């Protein structure tokens, strides 16, 4: 008892929000804090796009086509005279939604396939893992393009396609985790107490997969946003006049020589967003799982 009090005083009293080791590690990491800042700013911008944006994102004004950045239009105007800054601000909404929805699709389906297959073992495992292996042998962007080819190019189909293309990553990750977790004693104890499979999976195994899944998902949002922008750029994602960053860039490139700002700024928006998720994800990984950070050294 005495030693315990001693260590407490030696370490000093921490405010309640610093009691958590993971949070402390995270807050010591400057890059991670920068990432969190970027994401916070982006989230606020996307939420309050209507208030923040100085102009209507779809309001064309043919008297103001292809203007360079000025006081009235901070980032200039596009080929239809629409305010570029406002379009980029509204684009944040689309890109963040795209990122989260497609990762959600991949996370849910992949986790389900990985967890149930691995936990059950036998032919269910065999069939599901062969399927995942086959999907993994497609380069992800190409799988997404193949799915868009079938479903037709649109913003929603791009979300689904990218989600499906991300599924095998989660299935593999969860498989590895469940393989080791299902041999743990507390799982055996739960089974001895008569818990049925669904309960063991949902209450005992999956909660312990959570932190690697959160880390992976943060990084996957970054890659989902990149893929979505690529699909938009190729004309296989969001269709005009939707202010999606990739689609804006592909329109802007037609005016690369006369109005390079149309290409430069939407790209900066994509870059900063992806950078934010990457920094935040790297920081999360270091904070939640020090061993993983050492092993990957990232």
């Amino acid at each position, binding site marked *: 008892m005495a030693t315990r009090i001693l260590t407490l005083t030696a370490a000093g009293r921490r405010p309640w929000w610093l009691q958590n080791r993971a949070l402390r590690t995270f807050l010591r990491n400057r890059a991670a804090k920068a990432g969190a800042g970027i994401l916070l700013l982006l989230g606020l911008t996307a939420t309050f796009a209507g208030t923040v944006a100085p102009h209507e994102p779809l309001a064309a004004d043919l008297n103001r086509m292809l203007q360079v950045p000025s006081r009235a239009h901070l980032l200039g105007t596009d080929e239809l005279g629409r305010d570029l800054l406002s379009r980029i601000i509204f684009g944040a909404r689309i890109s963040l939604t795209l990122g989260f929805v497609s990762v959600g699709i991949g996370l849910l389906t992949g986790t389900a396939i990985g967890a149930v297959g691995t936990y059950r073992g036998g032919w269910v495992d065999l069939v599901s893992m062969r399927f995942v292996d086959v999907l993994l*042998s497609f380069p992800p962007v190409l799988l997404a393009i*193949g799915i868009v*080819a079938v479903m037709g190019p649109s913003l929603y189909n791009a979300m689904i396609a990218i989600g499906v293309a991300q599924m095998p990553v989660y299935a593999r990750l969860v498989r590895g985790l469940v393989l080791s977790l299902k041999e743990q004693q507390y799982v055996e104890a739960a089974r001895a107490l008569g818990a049925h499979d669904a309960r063991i999976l949902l209450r005992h195994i999956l909660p312990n997969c959570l932190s690697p899944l959160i880390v992976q998902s943060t990084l996957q949002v*970054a890659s989902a946003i990149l893929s979505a922008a690529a699909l938009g*750029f190729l004309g296989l994602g969001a269709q005009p006049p939707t202010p999606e960053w990739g689609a804006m860039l592909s329109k802007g*490139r037609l005016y690369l020589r006369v109005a390079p700002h149309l290409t*430069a700024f939407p790209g900066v928006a994509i870059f900063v967003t*992806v950078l934010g998720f990457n920094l935040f994800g790297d920081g999360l990984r270091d904070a939640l799982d020090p061993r993983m950070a050492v092993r*990957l050294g990232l």
Partner: protein
Amino acid sequence: MVPLLLGVSMVVFVLIRLIPGDPAELLASQWATAEDIALVRRAWGLDRPLPIQYGVFLGNLLRGDLGRSVASSVPVSTEIAARYPATLVLAVASMTVAIGVGGAAGIISARRPYSWLDNGAMVLALVGVSAPAFWAGLMLILLFSVILGWLPASGMGSLRHLVLPAVTLGSVAAGVIARQTRSSMLDVLSQDYIRTARSKGVAEAAVTYRHALKNALIPVVTIVGLQFGTLLGGSVVVESVFAWPGMGRLLVDAVLVRDYPIVQAAVLLFAATFACINLLVDMLYGLLDPRIRYE
């Protein structure tokens, strides 16, 4: 490898059959009557059960018969043969850039961890990973073609045409490879046998390249193999930016005009290429580490 390719062909086959609408109607001209469509259905074997259709598809595939393009009526194999080498050239050139730049940056970073050189290299690597390739490509065009006029902005032909696309496509993989090389090298450099080598007076360069690098290569090779997949996917975008006449552009154009035989063949070939790369990587493990043997 063979079961994997079978699986890949099955997924592509099913994917194409999932397209809403009657394939016979898509194949026939838009003025076709009901009898014409029935005729097309018979002629293409679309009235037969799916497993048999798959068997026929597979048989044709093995003989290199991939059907005809709906848009141009040219055999798909001819179209693909004209485009595949260009994509391969671009992919290999980009990977060379990525391994050269990424590997060098990783090694330099690992030799002086937390120095300004290391920090700078790792910031650059993160930029490479986070910047969208099509944007980076367009910015490079803006700088080197439009403003400076040093390099051509599009097309294929001389080595000069290859520089910008290869750098653009390679930059993402370079970032990932740099990060992996650094961490893998740092891992190895803290091992006991490195200290032994140094204490018996082995030159630092020999320690880095003979003792450390060789042992650090396995995870790097894994990442390089995986990056090849990303690179093949990225080639689709980069080929569009630089008007590079490869398979990626063929695929995107085919998707936009719903030319499914081309889509099917292109996706299959991309996946098969990636599978071959993975096989190559697996065989490399054995070469790099004699302890790894395959039965």
